[in-house]
């Protein structure tokens, strides 16, 4: 297996009874790449991602994530990936520091390492004033930046971001993308699922799922050229409407 391929998926399929939610998808993601995983509501994105993060068993096909097999090494996958979603990120009724300690513990970091990481994160994000405040009291943009950093605590090879920036103001959102670019620059692979097409424009490459299949996969630039449109939104509309 090519060591630069952090995610390698071949013919991955998931059936629920007679219904094929994910239909033989094949793709690979390189180290340090920002990969956008798009699709309409119900196209099979979430089902596919659940298989990749080791919480749902595929029906057939193969997939390796961070070098581990999704069929036989799901627990190893969980230890080697980070996950962040807008729906669930941090505990609102714990302080910023407590959240870091809690998630550090879950990921099995030593007390010393947690201490180091906490300091690093607080300095990095300028959290000195809010480190002992409850996360629930912080603005959405801060929560997102903190939860992204928390997802990186254990220095995973890949971070899965599930619709990360919906609803945030445009400036905060760009600060967030700068953090993503930095992580990618440092070699972390970023896997973003979203149906917000403007998030797709930030990705190195983008795949678009329609009814369980990957119908397009390329850089945003090439996809726009291929479909002769000026935005990813229009690419999506052309694909989804057939």
């Amino acid at each position, binding site marked *: 297996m090519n060591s630069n391929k952090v995610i390698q998926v071949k013919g991955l399929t998931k059936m629920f009874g007679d219904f094929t939610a994910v239909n033989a998808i094949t793709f690979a993601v390189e180290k340090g790449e920002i990969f956008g995983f798009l699709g309409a509501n119900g196209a099979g994105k979430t089902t596919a991602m659940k298989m990749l993060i080791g919480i749902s068993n595929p029906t057939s096909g193969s997939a390796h994530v961070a070098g581990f097999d999704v069929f036989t090494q799901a627990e190893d996958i969980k230890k080697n990936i980070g996950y962040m979603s807008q729906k669930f990120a941090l505990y609102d009724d714990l302080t910023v520091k407590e959240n870091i300690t809690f998630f550090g513990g879950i990921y099995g970091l030593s007390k010393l390492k947690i201490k180091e990481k906490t300091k690093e994160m607080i300095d990095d994000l300028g959290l000195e004033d809010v480190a002992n405040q409850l996360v629930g009291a912080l603005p*959405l943009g801060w929560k997102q930046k903190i939860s992204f950093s928390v997802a990186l605590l254990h220095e995973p090879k890949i971070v899965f971001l599930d619709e990360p920036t919906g609803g945030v*103001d445009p*400036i905060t959102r760009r600060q967030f993308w700068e953090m993503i670019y930095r992580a990618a620059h440092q070699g972390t692979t970023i896997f973003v699922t979203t149906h917000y097409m403007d998030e797709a424009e930030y990705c190195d490459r983008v795949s678009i799922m329609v009814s369980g299949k990957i119908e397009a996969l390329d850089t945003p630039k090439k996809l726009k050229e291929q479909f002769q449109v000026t935005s990813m939104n229009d690419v999506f*509309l052309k694909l989804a409407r057939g």
Partner: protein
Amino acid sequence: MGISINHISKSYKHVKALQDISFDVKPNELFGLIGPDGAGKTTLFRILTTLLIANEGNATIAGYDVIHDFKEIRKHVGYMPGKFSLYQDLTIEENLKFFATIFGTTIDENYDLIKDIYVQIEPFKNRRAGKLSGGMKQKLALCCALIHKPKVLFLDEPTTGVDPVSRKEFWDMLKRLQQKNITILVSTPYMDEAALCDRIALIQDGEILQIDTPETIVKQYPKTIYNVNASNMYQLIMSLKAYPHQYSVYPFGEFVHYTDTRDGFNPDELKQYLQAQNLSNITIEKTQATIEDSFMEFAK
């Protein structure tokens, strides 16, 4: 028969949710309230739909005062809240009948108004609302908000969490409703939806940043924006931010939007600087401002 908002302010404990908000929505206008989560959009909607009382200021809806005439307003407005608020365990048809009945009307009486939208979900009319997809829920909620033929329609983030295809269909529906003499106030966190409105108000942290047509707002952007691209996005952003003459540096999809503090800015000079920073495949091209550029400039 539009909306008139005069110096509305509202605070919750320590948070100033709305500060001195004033604007008018003309009859039959499609007016967009554009801003991120926490900007105060929902608070304003709740005040205008008589569900919340402002600390200061007043507002009229279709000529009725939100305090004194609240009962009249409730008969004449349709409100689609951001959170899906229909009965999950009633079917599509039962929900619609329910709303028609409490407004003292029937589905038949105003069927014309909802027909275009309802036919799309009618095949599933015996399905419970809780079992519908996001796009279908949204269409049902719109039908329920329209069934009593309101004069003014309030739509609070109707397209949040909905995929691009359903979003497009939804905006097409709004355009058609506008033709039927309904004034529409719609809120959205998506800047790209601003262009679909007649006029927009940009709102952040409880304050209005700007009100105008989307075309005018974009045209008034004070600087020339350049699309800058290079082979390493992170290094490009860091180098541009370190450039002494930068005015703003914002990642924008596959490009960075760059503006310069100087009037006589020469792109070649910037290119040389970036090359000296070991960046390759550099392109610098003029581009048009978007609503998002304008929003960030106002919020700066």
